[in-house]
């Protein structure tokens, strides 16, 4: 059991990372990666949604009629996203404003749907839960990478703390404005995918 969970985690973060190799879930993600903090919150939110939706759907998988399963999945997922949305509004108001509609858009994030279809409907609840955590983590890692690169080079800070020493600015160093605009996220993601593949993360068959 434990070994299987571990193998599963390794695969979903590295070998078949949902963003880098399966093209899933790029939709609602890239817009929130200007700062590392936003990316982390978004990653964690998605991880929780995938994990719990996998768990719920897997627990009731024997009772879902096959023909209406998409509707059932959507209902479960949107309820979970609603909970996360309200929690953010209640305890983390500024972040909720910063992420604007993108938290709500987790509903249509293909990772959640994809994992429900591909894994949760065929496996036990506990295993599905960890599969959700693993895939959510794979997503969060990429988001955090893009988030930190964009924040370091775009605003010279990390999590709001200045990391590029100020004497460099005196010497004529300037923040890269490109990092703050949307195209940077695409280009960085392209480069990250390249790195992942070149380092052998891909299992070769795609």
């Amino acid at each position: 059991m434990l070994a299987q969970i571990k193998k599963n985690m390794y695969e979903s973060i590295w070998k078949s990372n949902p963003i880098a190799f399966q093209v899933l879930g790029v939709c609602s993600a890239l817009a929130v990666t200007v700062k590392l903090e936003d990316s982390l919150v978004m990653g964690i939110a998605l991880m929780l949604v995938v994990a719990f939706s996998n768990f719920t759907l897997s627990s009731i998988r024997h009772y879902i009629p096959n023909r209406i399963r998409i509707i059932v999945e959507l209902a479960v997922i949107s309820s979970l996203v609603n909970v996360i949305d309200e929690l953010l509004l209640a305890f983390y108001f500024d972040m909720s404003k910063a992420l604007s509609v993108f938290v709500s858009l987790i509903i249509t994030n293909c990772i959640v749907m994809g994992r429900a279809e591909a894994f949760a409907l065929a496996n036990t609840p506990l295993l599905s839960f960890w599969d959700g955590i693993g895939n959510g983590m794979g997503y969060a890692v990429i988001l955090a990478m893009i988030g930190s690169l964009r924040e370091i080079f775009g605003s010279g800070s990390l999590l709001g703390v200045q990391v590029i020493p100020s004497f460099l600015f005196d010497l004529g160093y300037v923040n890269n404005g490109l990092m703050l605009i949307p195209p940077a996220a695409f280009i960085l993601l392209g480069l990250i995918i390249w790195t992942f593949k070149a380092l052998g993360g891909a299992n070769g068959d795609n």
Partner: protein
Amino acid sequence: MTTHNILHLLSIFITSIFIENILLSFFLGMCSFLAVSKRIDTAMGLGIAVIFVLVITAPINWIINHYLLVPGALASIGLPNTDLSFLRLIIFISVIAAVVQLVEMIIEKVSPALYLSLGIFLPLIAVNCAILGVSLFMVEKEYSFTETIVFSVGSGIGWWLAIIAMASIREKITYSNVPKDLEGLGITMITTGLMALGFMCFGGINLSSDDSSNKNYEETIIPSFMEK
């Protein structure tokens, strides 16, 4: 309708197509964008289906949101303090799923030819974030009914334009020599980035008709460019 109003609608329209392109600056609808942009004709089909569904769902969601969900909307039936806005997400996504299903059935019945070209894309669209995104943005930006219609048409056309452009570029990329590990998804992302960069240059267009914002534009944007 006054000139000001028409100009305002026109500005929403142009903004949603070029300046704030739903795909290139809000990243919505990326999944189907990446999956279906390999050939121009399929991209064309999906693009038109997206416009179609957007134009139907956004106004419906506006009506539901305005008459049922916003705080105080139920005052006429004696529930002035009821705030159903927490149901917004679930209702929006159900409306979208239902409309997509309905549209699919109607098209199949009425025009089999159109069904053959659009039909396969319709189920994909139910989970396209651009559709839900437009409904959510319209709530966030507090658009009126007319503005919502214009905004949904504009966003749809913007998405269609982006996927067509991408499909054309990808058909050309097939013939070029891309490093092995960058092939496929990697080079597509970078191309999208460059395309988004291209679309950024529309950002300087100022469409608003009143003078105060023109002045604002000159005061804020130009100096910030000059400093750089």
